[in-house]
């Protein structure tokens, strides 16, 4: 027995020591992570919860650090939901390590950390040949033929990477960009460009249907399998939101744990640098709603006329009983006009302020250079689900900022916005050579040459604004521009840091296509820096999590004032305060109706309340805000009381006071 005890003790120490010493000199594979997480069970404050098993038999794990107590805020960190972002998983392991070494972090908060939301896809990063994919292994007949998962990629040249194949073809759609014949872009036939290459992913047409690698193993992109803006009828996002056990089990967990105060996603987006993406069109134009006959009759309205949502809300209020709670949500539901689709303006303000904090933070770690933009939140992603449906403050971080390379070949090229700002004389004084360069760079139509331009400007048929508008139309689309910029920047970054980003095209004898060239960007290169750079990047950036957490709302009872009104009647005033920066809840939390209000109760159930409620609900307190609540109570003798303020995720507080005559 004694022996057993000491055995446990040793085990415990080893385990804890191990968890304190995660080595970040390389990326951790699934089995490495399993070892780390298994050892966590030896730590008193951490445990691993298996949310589900994937189709490949991998564990989808969640690490809980810190004991959950009522009101104690929990922080959900969801890393690598996509499955193809090993860096995000490393960042989450780094965070786990960090929390285990800082007791205060788990004293004050409960941490729920998901190191990877899509373990089956993640597993692919550690397999040969290396093939970038965010799909799990759910069978999927992508090409709707007689077989399932029968045509995936092959590493034809045996270099360990699945890259691309380019083939010269009269029907080709791709051409090399100027200055770097390795990089291809789509030809623009409307500008007289003729494609040279057809582009395929590396492999053979296993099912002989003329298509290459169109039905690979799997699967569903778990990271896009959540209900907000879910895309139906794609071959990758699943049949319905939550169709995968991965996403469903995560939703189950986050809905059952109401103590979650904030969601921080480690992935490909950065909702710290940029505020949440907006500008979506509503499903229904809410300024012009036409009511159906039944509804119009009920509201005494004209079915042939259109009304704004605000007008209809007023009408519904007028024809409902006075105690019925009529708000935008109830009316939207009544009319069947969908959910909100853009970040709410109150929240946008908060996101903008936090973005400023983040930019200051980047300065302190010297990562404030101009970088390639992070990805936008994807439809069906966990980020948008969390913001639009859980109603929680939602942030995200990517950890691989690629510095934007200065455009070498066009260093002296004016941008369109620069041109726009020039006066007519300034523009003409650029001279023939420069203006012709500009025309070429922005693909101006061939009939517009320098002489023509001068003529048009002099006859005032053209001005600088019109000219730059014309170039905007002819220039390669902005999207393509940024894609090229990204590729150039990647190559430059690799060169500077001494790692290979691009595998040069080499000829290969393809059994079906004949002579092809195989090459292209290495898989994962845009998202996954080499081992040598990884630790520094996460070490610098993960600490911003501390800053986000410091912003959480904290509900406190500032003070309670009692005033005797005589005859045993007292007026009680309580000042309830939110000491945190973030409101409780945010505007989205109010809209989704998912966040429980702050609940005020007295510890004495027999107290006679004359005016006011036994359970007072406060729907919202702004950051650094204060709310006043009043009661009128009766007590025939002095009475000691306690006021309790309870929340699910923004702390609990109590305040002792007494009812007595003056």
């Amino acid at each position: 027995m004694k022996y057993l005890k000491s055995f446990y003790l040793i085990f415990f120490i080893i385990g804890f020591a191990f968890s304190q010493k995660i080595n970040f000199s390389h990326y951790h594979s699934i089995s490495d992570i399993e070892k780390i997480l298994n050892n966590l069970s030896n730590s008193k404050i951490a445990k691993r919860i298996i949310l589900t098993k994937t189709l490949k038999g991998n564990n989808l794990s969640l690490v809980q650090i810190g004991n959950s107590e009522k009101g104690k805020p929990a922080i959900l960190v969801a890393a690598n939901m996509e499955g193809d972002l090993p860096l995000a998983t490393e960042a989450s392991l780094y965070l786990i390590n960090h929390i285990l070494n800082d007791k205060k972090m788990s004293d004050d908060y409960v941490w729920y950390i998901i190191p990877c939301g899509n373990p089956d896809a993640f597993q692919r990063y550690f397999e040969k040949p290396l093939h970038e994919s965010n799909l799990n292994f759910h069978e999927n007949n992508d090409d709707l033929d007689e077989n399932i998962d029968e045509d995936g990629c092959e590493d034809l040249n045996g270099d360990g990477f699945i890259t691309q194949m380019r083939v010269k073809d009269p029907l080709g759609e791709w051409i090399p960009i100027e200055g770097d014949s390795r990089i291809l872009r789509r030809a623009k036939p409307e500008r007289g460009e003729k494609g040279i290459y057809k582009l395929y992913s590396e492999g053979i047409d296993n099912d002989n249907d003329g298509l290459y690698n169109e039905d690979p193993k799997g699967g569903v992109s778990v990271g896009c399998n959540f209900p907000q803006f879910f895309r139906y009828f794609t071959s990758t996002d699943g049949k319905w939101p939550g169709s995968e056990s991965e996403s469903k089990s995560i939703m189950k967990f986050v809905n059952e744990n109401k103590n979650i105060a904030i969601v921080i996603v480690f992935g490909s987006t950065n909702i710290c640098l940029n505020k949440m993406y907006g500008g979506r069109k509503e499903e229904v134009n809410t300024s012009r709603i036409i009511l159906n006959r039944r509804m119009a009759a009920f509201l005494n309205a004209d079915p042939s006329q259109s009304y704004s949502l605000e007008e209809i809300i007023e009408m519904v209020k007028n024809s409902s009983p006075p105690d019925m709670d009529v708000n935008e949500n109830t009316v939207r539901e009544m009319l069947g006009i969908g959910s909100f689709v853009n970040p709410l303006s109150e929240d946008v303000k908060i996101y903008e302020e936090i973005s400023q904090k983040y930019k200051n933070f980047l300065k302190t770690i010297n990562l404030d250079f101009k970088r390639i933009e992070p990805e936008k939140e994807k439809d069906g992603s966990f980020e948008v689900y969390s913001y639009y449906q859980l109603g929680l403050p939602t942030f995200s971080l990517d950890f691989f900022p690629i510095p934007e390379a200065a455009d070498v070949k066009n260093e002296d090229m004016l941008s369109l916005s620069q041109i726009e700002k020039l006066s007519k004389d300034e523009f003409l004084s650029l001279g023939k050579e420069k203006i012709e360069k500009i025309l070429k760079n922005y693909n101006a139509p061939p009939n517009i040459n320098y002489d023509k331009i001068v003529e048009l400007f002099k006859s005032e048929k053209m001005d600088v604004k019109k000219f730059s508008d014309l170039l905007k139309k002819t220039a390669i689309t902005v999207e393509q521009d940024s894609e090229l910029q990204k590729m150039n920047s990647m190559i430059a970054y690799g060169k500077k840091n001494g790692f290979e980003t691009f595998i040069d095209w080499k000829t290969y004898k393809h059994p079906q296509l004949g002579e092809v060239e195989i090459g292209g960007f290495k898989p994962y290169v845009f998202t996954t820096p080499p081992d040598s750079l990884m630790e520094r990047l996460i070490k610098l950036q993960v600490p911003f999590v501390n800053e986000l957490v410091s912003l959480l709302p904290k509900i406190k009872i500032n003070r309670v004032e009692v005033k005797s009104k005589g005859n045993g009647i007292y007026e009680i005033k309580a000042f309830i305060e939110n000491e945190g920066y973030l409101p409780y809840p945010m505007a989205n939390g109010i809209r989704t109706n998912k966040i429980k209000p702050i609940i005020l109760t007295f510890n004495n159930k027999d107290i006679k309340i004359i005016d006011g409620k036994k359970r007072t609900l406060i729907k919202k307190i702004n950051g650094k805000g204060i709310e006043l609540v009043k009661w009128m109570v009766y007590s025939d003798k002095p009475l000691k009381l306690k006021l309790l303020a309870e929340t699910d995720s923004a702390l609990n507080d109590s305040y002792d006071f007494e009812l007595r005559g003056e």
Partner: protein
Amino acid sequence: MKRFKRIIILYFIFSALLFSQQKKITIPLSFDYYYTYDMLVQAIKALNAAYPKLTELNYIGKSDEGRDIWGITINNPKTGKDIDKPGIYVDGNIHGNEIQASEVCLYLAQYLLENYDKNQEIKDLVDKKCFYIIPSINVDGRFHFFNDPNTSSSNRSLRIPKDDDNDGLIDEDYPDDLDGDGNICLMRKKDPFGKMKTLPDEPRLMVSIKTGEKGEWTLLGTEGIDNDEDGKYNEDSEGYVDGNRNWGYNWKPNYIQSGAGDYPFESKTTTAVAEFISKKPNICVVWAFHNNGGMYLRGPSSKEQGEYPADDITVYNYLGEQAERITPGYRYMISWKDLYTTYGDFLEWMCMTYGAYGFVGELFITESESFKSIKESKKSPESAQQDSDSRTSLQRERLKFNDHLAQGELFKDWKPFKHPVYGDIEIGGWVKMSSRLPAPFMLKDLVHRNASSVIFSAKNTPEVELEVFDVQSISKDLYRVRVRLINSKAIPTMSKYAILKKLYPMDMLSIKGEKIKVVAGGKIQNLFNNEVTYKEYKPEIQFTYVPGFSKAEHEFIVSGKGKIVITYNSRWAGKIEKEFELK
């Protein structure tokens, strides 16, 4: 120990009492009463026991409260496996209170089985098709509807506890059966400032007062107390996840679609049913029975989805308009347009995920509780003038129906009650087993007509024949083989929707032979002009489908000789093989 014994004895007495209250289930089943959850399970099992050769008992799964959900498959294994035949899926009672939906399912099953040996039409139908029947989806709701006090509309929800009023307490303010009669009725209080008055000739009925009239009553709402003392009555009862809003297509969160749940398939109940359905790709027709209003609803269930493809609407109209004739008074309607918008409902999930054709049957029309002679119905305009609106006259007529056809069982007379907050009040009104349910004597008509609507659609599931209608020699050992697929029924072998949205592979028509090579193959677009669209790769497998009451024609150019097998394989219409020799 002694006490323990007493408890055991009491338990046996009680269970014996309970058992004696239940009717014994025998085949043929009766349809002049409603089946409790336990009786329903017994009935499903009894059907299976009586017709073991034609049925299979399906354990669907456990409900949210842990009750068993049972289904029954009707299929004749001698004529083939179930999934090789067109599947007709029928369910009911996804809303706990909508109980007669289950009786429609039971009746359909029994009717098909009972008549298999007696009626050639039914025999043909059962031999060619397969029926999947789940009489009660929301078994928890059914159980509580029978066992607990209810209104005719309460206990609709799945039994997943939710904080409906977002006050931090869950399911804490439910209706209370104050007078202990097993019904949740209405509460009213005498009040000279009230907004209601009784009708002089029918004191059980109240109408709103007009301006200037003196009031008599204030209507206080459904029977109950304010359990959580928040000033609102019965605002957070058991549940509320609506079984018909928790499915995976066009699901929207609870704040915009109440009853949605936290995410699609949050419920064990809906998950279990979806799991069962996922194994039956042959389901081409779906019927989900509800109450009430006398409607056959089809999707779309929301406007922004847009209308279904025209080819599919043709099929819906054919089935829906016929159902309107089979069940007079029921209207065939479009769900979002003619009723209301719903998100995440079952039917749309079936149609959008599996491409099936489906209807919701809203059973029972209030007007069927009529109390009018021929003469009276002819001069209805005048009699309507007796009341300010038609609703009141309908209520008046229903009360007479209650008095003379149900001997007072449907309406509870107003009786005084001392309410802890409101003081002297009266409780009364329509009882649980009324309003949305036909009186038992009318049940048989309802179940037969609705089962007949299902049978009509079942008869119209695709039936395909394959004929090799033209074999010509082009040159030595080179042949042109033409194949025609003929669908003699209204429903195509794939919905247009399934094709357009690429829900699954199309039907396959393939040609094989040991000594042949398929040189080319394609779909014949125009037989007379010899217009064929060739498939560039793998010509031996053609993707196709056969529209309703129509055909699809394909051509193969084959070199070689000998035995050839042509196979047609369809999710819905099954598999056909034809062999012949090229000589």
